């Protein structure tokens, strides 16, 4: 290692090659560039010509300089120059590197990894072995490895190392170090994560005793952790903790949905001297329930709080005799409940025992009489475990004897009820339906907006008692309780004194109903009615050290509660993440104790402390090689210029060469970008090019060789006529295979339909339909005019009808007189082909729906291609029936009109307005 200020050479002996440069100079000087060879007829005139001033036959000095610089750069690059080469390893023997790769290391992992790699490389340059000791990521079975490795292998390990989402396990590390301490006099470097880990002091003490310990500490703020969020109030709140109560500092958290969307971002700040900050997400309840996790910005695994179903949507059970909806939903109470709950809760219908077994957080019992003993006991147990039971009154409840005999607690009612019900309003009453107005200020419904619209016509009444007032959560305007409730164990029991349907009140139709239900369902103790799940849960998705969710690693084991029922702690076999099944997932968080979170204490005396800051070591070899390559390119250009291969003018040659040189240098110095010109040829391209480079008529290949030949010949002849008579000069016609070829390139498709036309595949039908929808026109030629004297159509028409079942052929009508086809180019009265007479069918535009478009279908049986086709001798291939060249001429005119119509559309139809336009112009 040779050091010159900030510059150092890793292989200084290579620099000796620089001594060879003068030799190279001499060698280059005597080797002129090879001449360019030019053929020249007037060579006779050149005989004996030589430039008057004779210059030595050598390369110009600047070219020599260029080449020498190139060689020097290559030599320097091979000597491995390093900028800011960091010494700092002074000892002998293996270098021990202890790396904190725990949850707190993920947020600045790149710097940590770079420092680690630089250390390993440096050790390797000095030929020293390396002991690489991660504090969290070692194999839990074998314990930390203290075996020295060659630097090359250690570098591979260091590059493969990633932070782990669990705390450092320094106890095991300290044991391993105690058992097999690093040799005296070696260098020991601890790349620390900046927080105090349990056992860290002991481990540092062991290492300090070996001497030569350097602790490299993170120089910024410590990691921040997210505490378990709280979704109970009007907003989702999360607390963030930091290791030290420093000055005020901003902090931001994101709420991320399960699918990765960021739902909200909240920025707040740690107050000066505070270790915790509370941030709230103001989100609609629907969105709040979508939150899958909370992330502290700028943090890795420690800043992620995973949420599971307990946080998200409340699951509400509607007790019904069966899971199916009734036939008349508007008379069904459950229908109104379901509608009101749907925006914010997961609603399940089912029988009571099924609901309770599936772990709903709230159960709603519509009007029902006395409950069977078994169910009442089961419900009571469930409520005491934390569930919320919401009951509704109704005729059944009123009729039941539950108010008469039983006490309220046994009847699962918050208050004792009077038998019967009270009717407000009605034909025989003076009273009027009463509105719900008052909410108990200390009840769960406190402060709700009454909306003033919900009135109650009938209700059940509570028996007056001492605790009625405190159990009353909502009252009618005359003070009678309408919603009562009371806690029961860890759960709640709530009763609506009216029905959940509009039968007794308007409540079910009001927005108030939704708001009330939302609050009451939320009583289900955060959904934490966890029935004791049996046994362990398999890992579903786990966090990595950067705080990203992914498939669990192979080392991840199953989650199971500790024997005392407490949460287990995260470790190599139990990374934080989701456990369970996709349907029922349980979030297992890192759960760092915020009170134990503390900044790393200052290292004890005798231990050097550094930070990650400082200029990084830079290997200059790639830059030098790049520069040498740029010079090589410049040399190439210059040599070409010297040999006269570049278009250099005689007078300004020198200047232009210099400019080119500069240009080449500038171009080569810029980052070379891989230019990837891709030529992709797809199978259909040849067809597409052929079809689009010229306008072409196209016919459908029907598989009958005779028919296809006539189609080809007919369209070729028509193309000829078009070229001769009109501005359209089509290329030779193309046959298209409906099964294989793209139709979009053609405006007009000639489709003869012989009786033996093969059936269409779905793909072909789809293609033809798309063609017609996108404005293409098809001339169906059934070629059976001679056999269809009547209107029924001949064999071709019959076949076409069969084919047409899979095609979207619009309603057709005989072309009306004055149709654009009759005057697109020529004025025609009829459209004869080989056979004259009979109608040609076009889309029925009489209802004017698509009057502006070209008809997608033109249908006739006139065998037009037969009329157009010419034989090899240039004469017409078939006679026309009944005959006469006039008919043939009209067949061609029809063809010309047809192509014009297909290519130009219906603009000729605008001619109908010409008289009125002229008239207007005349005025």
């Amino acid at each position, binding site marked *: 290692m040779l050091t010159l200020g900030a510059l150092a050479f890793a292989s200084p002996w290579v620099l000796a090659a620089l001594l060879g440069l003068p030799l190279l100079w001499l060698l280059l000087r005597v080797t002129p560039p090879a001449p360019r060879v030019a053929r020249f007829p007037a*060579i006779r005139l050149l005989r004996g010509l030589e430039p008057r001033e004779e210059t030595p036959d050598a390369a110009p000095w600047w070219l020599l300089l260029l080449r020498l610089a190139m060689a020097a750069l290559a030599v320097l690059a091979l000597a491995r120059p390093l900028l800011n080469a960091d010494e700092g390893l002074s000892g002998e023997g293996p270098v021990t590197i202890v790396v904190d790769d725990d949850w707190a290391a993920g947020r600045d992992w790149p710097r940590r990894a770079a420092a680690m790699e630089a250390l390993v490389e440096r050790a390797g340059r000095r030929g020293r072995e390396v002991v690489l000791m991660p504090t969290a990521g070692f194999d839990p079975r074998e314990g930390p490895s203290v075996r020295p490795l060659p630097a090359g292998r250690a570098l591979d390990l260091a590059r493969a190392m990633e932070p782990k989402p669990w705390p450092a396990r320094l106890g095991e590390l300290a044991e391993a170090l105690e058992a097999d301490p690093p040799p005296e006099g070696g260098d020991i470097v601890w790349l620390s994560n900046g927080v105090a880990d349990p056992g860290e002091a002991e481990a540092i003490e062991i290492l300090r005793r070996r001497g030569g310990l350097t602790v490299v500490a993170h120089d910024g703020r410590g990691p921040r952790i997210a505490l378990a969020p709280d979704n109970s109030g009007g907003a989702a709140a999360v607390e963030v903790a930091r290791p030290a109560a420093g000055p005020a500092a901003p902090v931001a958290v994101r709420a991320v949905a399960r699918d990765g969307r960021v739902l909200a971002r909240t920025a707040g700040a740690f107050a000066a001297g505070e270790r915790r900050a509370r941030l709230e997400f103001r989100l609609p309840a629907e969105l709040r329930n979508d939150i899958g996790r909370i992330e502290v910005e700028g943090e890795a695994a420690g800043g992620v709080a995973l949420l599971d179903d307990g946080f998200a949507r409340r699951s509400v059970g509607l007790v019904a005799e069966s899971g199916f909806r009734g036939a008349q939903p508007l008379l069904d109470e459950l229908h109104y409940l379901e509608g009101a709950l749907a925006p914010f809760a997961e609603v399940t219908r089912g029988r009571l025992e099924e609901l309770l077994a599936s772990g709903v957080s709230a159960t709603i019992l519509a009007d029902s009489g006395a409950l069977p003993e078994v169910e009442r006991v089961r419900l009571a147990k469930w409520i005491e475990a934390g569930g919320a039971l919401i009951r509704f009154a109704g005729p059944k409840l009123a009729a039941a004897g539950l108010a008469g005999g039983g006490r309220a607690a046994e009847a699962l009612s918050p208050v004792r009820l009077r038998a019967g019900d009270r009717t407000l309003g009605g034909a025989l009453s003076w009273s009027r339906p009463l509105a719900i107005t008052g909410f108990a200020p200390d009840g769960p419904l406190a402060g709700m907006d009454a909306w003033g619209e919900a009135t109650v016509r009938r209700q059940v009444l509570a028996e007056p008692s001492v605790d009625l007032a405190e159990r009353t959560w909502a009252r009618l305007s005359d003070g009678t309780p309408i919603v009562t409730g009371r806690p029961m164990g860890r759960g709640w029991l709530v009763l609506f004194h009216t029905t959940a349907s509009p039968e007794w009140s308007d409540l079910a139709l009001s927005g108030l109903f939704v708001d009330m239900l939302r609050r009451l369902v939320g009583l289900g103790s955060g959904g934490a009615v966890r029935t004791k799940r049996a046994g362990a849960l398999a890992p579903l998705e786990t966090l990595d050290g950067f705080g990203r969710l992914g498939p669990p690693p192979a080392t991840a084991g199953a989650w199971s509660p500790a024997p005392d029922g407490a949460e287990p702690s995260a470790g190599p076999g139990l990374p934080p993440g989701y456990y369970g099944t996709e349907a029922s997932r349980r979030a297992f968080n890192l759960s760092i104790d915020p009170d134990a979170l503390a900044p790393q204490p200052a290292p004890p005396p005798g231990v050097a402390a550094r930070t990650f800051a400082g200029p990084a070591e830079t290997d200059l070899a790639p830059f030098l090689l790049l520069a040498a390559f740029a010079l090589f390119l410049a040399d190439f250009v210059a040599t070409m210029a010297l040999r006269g291969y570049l278009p250099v003018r005689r007078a300004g040659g020198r200047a232009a060469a210099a400019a080119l040189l500069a240009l080449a240098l500038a171009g080569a110095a810029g980052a070379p970008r891989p230019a990837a010109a891709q030529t992709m040829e797809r199978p259909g391209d040849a067809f597409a090019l052929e079809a689009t480079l010229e306008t072409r008529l196209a016919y459908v290949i029907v598989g009958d060789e005779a028919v296809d030949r006539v189609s080809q010949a007919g369209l070729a002849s028509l193309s000829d006529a078009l070229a001769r008579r009109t501005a359209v000069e089509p290329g030779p016609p193309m046959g298209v295979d409906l099964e294989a070829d793209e139709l979009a390139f053609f405006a007009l498709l000639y489709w003869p339909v012989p009786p033996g036309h093969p059936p269409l595949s779905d793909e072909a039908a789809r293609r033809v339909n798309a063609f017609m929808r996108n404005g293409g026109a098809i001339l169906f030629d059934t070629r059976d005019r001679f056999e269809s004297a009547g209107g029924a159509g001949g064999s071709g028409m019959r076949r076409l009808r069969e084919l047409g079942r899979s095609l979207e052929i619009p309603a057709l009508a005989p072309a009306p007189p004055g149709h654009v086809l009759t005057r697109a180019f020529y004025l025609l009265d009829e459209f004869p082909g080989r056979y004259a007479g009979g109608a040609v069918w076009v889309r029925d535009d009489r209802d004017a729906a698509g009057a502006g478009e070209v008809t997608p279908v033109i249908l006739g049986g006139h065998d037009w291609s037969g009329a157009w086709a010419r034989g090899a001798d240039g004469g017409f291939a078939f006679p026309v029936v009944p005959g006469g060249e006039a008919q043939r001429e009209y067949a061609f005119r029809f063809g010309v009109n047809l192509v014009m119509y297909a290519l130009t559309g219906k603009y000729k139809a605008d001619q109908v307005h010409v008289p009125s336009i002229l008239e207007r112009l005349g005025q």
Partner: protein
Amino acid sequence: MIRERAEALAARFPPLRVEARRVAATVLQGAHGRRRAGQGETFWRFRRYERFDEARRVDWRRSARGRELFVRETEWEAAQSVWIWRDASPSMRYRSRRDLPEKAGRADVLAAALAILAIEGGENVALLGEDMPARGGRAGLELFIAAMLASPGGGSAPPPEPPPRHAAVVWIADFLEPVEVYREAMAACVARGCAGHMLQVLDPAEEVFPFGGRVRFEGLEGEAPHLLRQADRVWGDYQRRLAEHREALRALASRAGWSFARHGTGQPAVGALLSLYGALARPPAFG
């Protein structure tokens, strides 16, 4: 479609002939602009009637205006024979850039176009040194072009066998050989009373010498290569030599009463043809 047919038709003709026709047509159109009296006969002048003139040659319309009789004299009473030699040696097969024609190609086009023009003018044409009679008319043109396409291309010097007496001779070549080579052939022609025209066809590279740097020049006829270390330095010398050589050629031509013109393949062929045609149409300097 129509364009394709035209091209198919044209493909039957050798490209040389088509090109020659195109060039010739351009010149002929220019010639048409002059007043032409009769079929292929150019009005020359009115002349006093002499005793030996035939009576039918009297121009009665002119004579009626005065008291004397006038005879209408037309140019070129008799068909002249034009003997064309174009250099087809390897040194002519050269072009310095891809977008230029080869010198030989340009020489062929000029020769064929000149033949067309001459035959249009009612004269007979032959290729010098091919042992063929001078013929006119359509057949003569076919014969001429066939001979040109068949001739293998001889040396750089004009063939030694001279044309018949009083024929017009046209040489189309690059004339890069030493002047002596041409002097002998010319002497033979002049001895037979032939008027002649020299057209030097050169590539632009030969005119401007656009070379620089270290260049090894190789000839096209097996000459020994010549290495120039700094080709741009000899530019001036080359230009001077080329000018001297051309001056020598021009002097040779003018002593024999021949015309001398130069033509670069970078220019359109029509200009050179026009000057050749004009030189041919002029009465011989000593006629």
